[in-house]
């Protein structure tokens, strides 16, 4: 397995790796951003529950 050749991809390396990178970034953000918002809302919700019962 020649990694140099694998990265080079017959001259098309840049196009291929940018494509796979774009996919990783875009699909990654689509998971990370909603999850972060979910956790923040969960935290807010728990805080307000404890406030009202304390």
């Amino acid at each position, binding site marked *: 397995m020649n990694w140099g050749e694998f990265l080079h991809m017959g001259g098309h390396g840049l196009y291929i790796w*940018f494509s796979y990178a774009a996919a990783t970034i875009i699909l990654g953000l689509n998971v990370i951003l909603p999850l972060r918002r979910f956790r923040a809302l969960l935290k807010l919700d728990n805080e307000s529950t404890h406030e009202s019962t304390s």
Partner: protein
Amino acid sequence: MLIKNFQKLAAAKYFYPFAGRLIPWLTGITLLLLVYGIYLGLFVAPPDYQQGESVRIMFIHVPSAWMSIFIYAMMAGAAAIGLVWKIKLADNFASACAPIGASFTFLALITGSLWGKPMWGAWWVWDARLTSELILLFLYIGFMALQSAIDEPRRAARAGAVLALIGVINLPVIHYSVEWWNTLHQPASVARIDGPRIHSSILVPLLVMAAAFMFYFFTVVLIRMRTAILGTERNSQWLQGETE
């Protein structure tokens, strides 16, 4: 009995925990399919005799494009249901679809450009397929912008629904663009009445990646829907129980 259970789900109170139980399974399946698909696409699939290694971009480009259209259809269908039967969960689903659909459309356009430059010598051409896919992106963005511009949630949902439904006409245009016009973009080789006409060594990774993206979509849309429910049902009793 089955229908009654299905109708129960339409209440956020039941949908929230139901989706919560599904998400881990969907995540697992998505990851397995993604790893297998990328392994097949990068290591197993052979280079094309004309296009060389750049054909590997197809395993991202084509499933993204398929998802961009599929999600729009789902979004418009749900928006119609919300419009007609006033089911909030349908509006929730439609709104959750939009950013994911827009992302896949954008990804299809970018990877298309990155494929077009080495193959056609151009980053962009105003051919029918590319142009109609770009219009799809504008429709998604318009839907999201319209909904965020309207404060009252039900009016926002209705306005977005009307836009989404008007945009449905673009879907057959995108699909048939390669038949109706002289396009640079290649004609259909998979979604054809007489079956696919590409070799299995290329078809299999393609279908695995398509399945991966499909499960990815269902995973993420459920996460978004639960987040939206958390946002709107903040003071509900049932939610206090769920989030302890």
